[in-house]
């Protein structure tokens, strides 16, 4: 929920799928300044003052969550975190953990900038080495 569209230009070359989004162009009461410019998917109803919004087609930002190999984190722990946080099943979690271990890094999730930032924060809270990456980089 941080950063929002302010740093989106790094991903501007992406020309993938589009979807309906609402762009909050002004601060709404009770939201706080962080919501300025943030992109919110319209899949769920969002209560925003009408004069503060406009609807348009915008690219879905292809941000990636990269988890890096680390000689300290136990393989069992990494697999556990993938299951507990992302809800992956045992086989998927194991596969991703082994990819991290063997290839040095793996893309574990993708999505909007806000979503992936939140994922990186969660990985750091768990103690995994993880970073945000622009999908077309």
């Amino acid at each position, binding site marked *: 929920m941080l950063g929002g569209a302010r740093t989106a230009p790094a991903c501007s070359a992406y020309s993938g799928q589009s979807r309906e989004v609402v762009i909050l162009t002004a601060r709404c009461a009770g939201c706080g300044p962080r919501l300025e410019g943030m992109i919110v998917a319209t899949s769920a109803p969002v209560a925003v003052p009408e004069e503060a919004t406009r609807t348009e087609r915008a690219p879905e930002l292809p941000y990636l969550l990269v988890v890096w190999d680390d000689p300290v984190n*136990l393989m069992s722990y990494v697999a*556990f975190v993938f299951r507990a946080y992302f809800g992956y099943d045992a086989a998927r979690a194991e596969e991703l953990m082994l990819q991290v271990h063997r290839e040095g890094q793996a893309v574990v999730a993708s999505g909007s900038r806000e979503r992936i930032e939140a994922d990186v924060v969660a990985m750091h809270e768990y103690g995994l080495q993880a*970073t*945000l990456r622009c999908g077309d980089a």
Partner: protein
Amino acid sequence: MARGFRHLGSGYVAELDPAEARLVITLARDVLQMLSNRDGAPLIEVPQPRGGRFEKLADWGIEADGAPGRHRATRRERRRRHGSLAVPDAVSEPERESSGAAEDLPGEPEPAEDRWWEALGLVDPTEETQADEPAPRRRAPQDPALARLLPDLIADADAEDGEAERLRALTEDGIVASKRSGLEEAVRLLAVDPLRIPEAEAPRFGAALNDIRLVLAERLGIHTEEDARRVTEDGDTDEVSHFMAVLYSFVSWLQESLMTALLKRR
């Protein structure tokens, strides 16, 4: 002799010797101290660790009378430093005001073991608090162990100029708070014998053990798989490094046993 975690009732139970539980508590407290040095927040009151002094050091392959091998800031110096950390003006909760003085921190080790923790030197007394850093940007910690707990959110190759610092400014306090609450809860759980982790607490307890291991690993210079093998298999380092390596192996074993029990359940 310790016995690893097994599922029991609505949680996970392990059997640790009092000295073993005390060691893990002390490690958790040192990591809490490092995090407090980062954001300026005071340490909470944690229970007095159970058990006696390090009379069982010999069991860990350590001579209790051995002197620290290298100079680190003494605990008294660290106490002074902690005591001098300014409590932010905005802080008004009474418990915070009272904890500004660090002279009688609970769970402070006895003098005999004090020497060992000084020698271990997990806490870097030169690390500056970042609480007063201007909001839009925050630098990464200088202490490499703290930097391992709080890495950049974006790799250099992927980042625009200043992006890592901006992301850190927005997120670091939350990550520190999360780690702190996990470590504090771990200390509370470890103070009770036998060690019982409720089902819902298990992920957070595992993360707290992981944070302890990240700090120990950095102090042991573990950066590659080869380093990890060297530390866990070779025994020919100096006593302090050997003790730290034994601690690392012990906490690793404890975390692995919890993960095994957890993954069996899922």
